[in-house]
């Protein structure tokens, strides 16, 4: 899906936990996430802490959007 959407001219940031799969699938901007069942959260934290965690991850995604890349890149 990532490739097809990007092929349409939309810049895509792929946020996922198993980044090697993302590399194989062909995503170009990849942001690693927390865990498979809750990529953008962590149930062990309080609601506020979890929001903060998620906010930071999405900030990484925004950074990825702003960064020009030539090749598949993981934004750690």
């Amino acid at each position, binding site marked *: *899906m990532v490739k097809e959407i990007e092929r349409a001219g939309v*810049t895509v940031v792929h946020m996922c936990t198993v980044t090697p799969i993302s590399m194989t699938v062909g995503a170009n901007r990849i942001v690693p996430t927390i865990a498979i069942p809750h990529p953008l959260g962590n149930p062990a934290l309080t609601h506020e802490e979890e929001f903060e965690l998620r906010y930071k991850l999405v900030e990484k995604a925004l950074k990825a959007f702003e960064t020009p890349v030539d090749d598949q890149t993981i934004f750690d």
Partner: protein
Amino acid sequence: MSLRVVHYINQFFAQIGGEEKADYAPEYREGAVGPGLALNAAFKGEAEVVGTVICGDSYFNENLDAAKATVLKMISDAKPDVVVCGPAFNAGRYGVACGTVAAAVKDELNLPVVTGMYEENPGADMFKNKVYIIATKNSAAGMRDAAPKMASLAIKLAKGEKIGASAEEGYMPNGLRVNFFEAERGSTRAVKMLLNKLAGKPYTTEFPMPSFDRVAPGAAITDLAHTTIALVTSGGIVPKGNPDHIESSSASKFGRYDISSFEDLTAADHETAHGGYDPVYANEDADRVLPVDVLRKMEKEGKIGGIYPYFFTTVGNGTAVASAKKYGEAIGKELRDAGIKAAILTST
């Protein structure tokens, strides 16, 4: 004396439990468990499963280094002549675990190893050039076909015998071209292939062209404050009640739902349709998969221009690559037509 085989399987095939037990830590059991019985039958006395290593799929993938080390030690301690992993069929995380274990067995323990999975399992592309992966059907119903092939290849590898071409042995093409004799001459195969191609029927090329299927990275977004971002997920987030009945596995469709009035996704209004991971966390708070709440905040802060009024969703689990491609094309077209330049895609 028969050859010693150690078998790696996940919590599901060990009949410990499904997704709720996917965090099961590695465990060693003597003898064959679950699919190991089918392997034993296929070994016909030439080899025997002497021990089984069981590990939950989420546990393995989320604790990769530690889990791998523990599993490797368990395998090594059992002193196998050959190791068999899976088969994982179309279970993505299980496939990645099988591939990871198999590659480590080969590289770190220097032992022969065979695994098996469906060709569209993400583990297949990741590991097919590293270890022998028998191509299986996409569900456990394929065990009957897979067991004899895995058993036969395992025995050959353990004995150090010559391994034939992928088409003969049943393993996925691994980038190494191996000669063998077909049943028919090349011209006859070519005529048949052409007739199938002309009739729109399936055919298999004998030499797949090297993969060019990479898309050039999209342009960097220079003005995020005025850019509307679309949200897409393969994590199966849907409005409560799953109105379009998106399948929990091998989805036949994608959904498109209005989020323009939502500040935050909650258990009252959204859930996941995904059947490939523990749904509890996403059902409690779908923002954990689709971060609507933080994007709304960023919108208010002026960091982004806005969120596209609809989000797109499907279930990645067991969904054919061809289907995913089709959904991606449709989503891409809508976004392009709407003038959207940026999308976040989340996967579980």
